[in-house]
């Protein structure tokens, strides 16, 4: 059986950059995977410089893991990712600190 993967494009921005860029990651799917565990996979295995909020409560309470997926704000720890999908990830609001990390309300 062909390995199931997720194609994730992530908007990257660091302070001082004139423009943002988009990086593409191919992530192997595992059952029960959420957007949070997918980001963690990328940080642990592919790109140590990815900035995202990983102090998540994992229970949908703190909302620090909010990101925009295909234009819609979701809580990444509560949203399963499906095998084979292509997704575009952006910060949840315009007050970007770096990559997917924003100032929270």
């Amino acid at each position, binding site marked *: 059986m062909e390995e199931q993967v997720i194609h994730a494009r992530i908007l990257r921005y660091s302070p001082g950059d004139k423009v943002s860029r988009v990086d593409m990651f191919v992530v192997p799917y595992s059952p029960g995977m959420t957007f949070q565990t997918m980001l963690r996979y990328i940080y642990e295995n592919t790109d140590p410089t990815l900035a995202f909020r990983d*102090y998540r409560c994992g229970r949908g309470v703190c909302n620090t893991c909010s990101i925009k997926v295909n234009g819609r704000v979701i809580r990444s720890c509560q949203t399963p990712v499906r095998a084979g999908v292509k997704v575009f990830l952006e910060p949840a609001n315009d007050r970007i600190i770096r990559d997917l990390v924003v100032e929270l309300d």
Partner: protein
Amino acid sequence: MSDYEVLKTEVLIIGGGAAGVRAAIGADNQRADVCLVSKGPVARSGVTPLAYQSLQAAFGISDARDNPDIHYQDTIVEGRHLSDENLARVLADESIPRALDLEKFGIKFKKQGEKFFQILHPGQTYPRNLVIVGGGFGLIYGLKRELQRRTRVRILEDFCVSHLLEDRGELVGAFGLNMRDGRFYAIGAKSIVLACGGYEELWGNSDTPPDSTGDGVFLGFKAGADVIDLEMVQYYPTVFAHPESLRGILVLYETLLEREHLDFRLVNNEGKEFLPEAPIPARDTLTRLIFTEIEDGRGTEHNGVYIDPGRSSKSHEEIDGLVNELLKVPDTNLKKLGIDLRKDRIEVCPAVHYTMGGIRINEKAETSVPGLFAAGENAGNVHGANRISGNALSETQVFGARAGKFASEYAKGRRHDSLPMRVIKEGVQEWKEFMRKKKEGIRSLVLRRELKRVMDCSMGPNRNEGGMKKALDKVLDLRQNALAKVAVTGGRVFNVDWRTAMEASTALGLAELVIRSALLRKETRGHHFRSDFPQTLETPQHTLVRRRDHEIGVAFSPVRRPDQ
């Protein structure tokens, strides 16, 4: 532009959970100049938002026989006589006024008419837990709102303190990294409150968020403060062991396993039930029974055991109804993740839930270092060898308020107020050392993962000398050899790897102290179970760790009885 900032305050609070925020309010009440720094966003990080709804205070509403004397007795008896009895006294007496403060701050409690609704939890002689609407999140959200009303308090979030600064033996401030702008900060302070929570994240199996790495305990230790009873770690018997996205989420086993509820069964990888006939054992025993199955090779693929709905005596319809009615795995979308509790067996394992050890304090929340205070889970000698439900949140309020008040008094009485450039430069230098060597090498998360494996394996609910000595060797090896090879890449702003490297360094240092304390305690007491020393000694004693120059001293220390 220099790469560091210098700030000044009177009282510096480190930690943005229930204890830290209450300390900030307490210090502001004394009209001190206050700065609060938090490793994550206040009210959205740490353990408080995940706490359950219980805060213990002996109002004696549900049962008029209850009073603070009985709260005090319950705390020390259930703490297996290892609580500092003077602290237990303060906790029992002041939970009542501190709960009333919370109401004034706008935090809502479940009420019956005008009066608090109180429920009984294990370890309480009479029903004593107040029920906070919205649980831990409701509490910390309300506290944060109160803090924001006090506009003089300065708040820095996403701020990691690396060490406390001293000048000629006096505490003068703290040094750290502000993740938001990627710059180092030296904060001059006349007094400091440590309120950074516990150290559950030294273990892999835990039900806490990833930031609970015991930073405050290790900061205090490095500054010379006495650290107490670090081996005392409270387990919760069942959390999800799998899948990864649910790891560490509590599974309310009482509801699932009780005969009169769902009547599901705990089974090992051979499909065998291993609990004795009803009733379900108490938490410490249940934890050990599950752990023994896993340790003896009868665990699941992900080092757990199964909760199996297949053998329930209930009909499908009954199960369906009861799952909907009783089971609140908070907010997790089990079904979306492909798990149906009615049909699927789930993998569960015991997890570290609360750490009783920490920095030793007295009734004024003072540590053994002048000007340094500690409160909440960061402090150590309040609960002894076992903590009863509801006392964790009470402790944050009682000792948070005291720490804030007495830290202000200390600051007001201190004339000396300088943060010499030499001290700042030393701080910057230390950081640069730490970060310089690191272009290529080991990822710090590999160290953290390795430490977790060692702690789960040898520092779990069943401990023995041989296993712990091996664990100590491994931890020392990681500390002395691997830590220097840690690599960190990327920019300065919100560099997750930098923070992970700091946390790995703290966790490895603290793990050594935890294991040394556990080796010293050659008895079984509360949550410290020694298979090689199963008896409980007649006279309880604290284990005490203290830094003197570069030596670590581990020794026993007597438990303080009233007014000692």
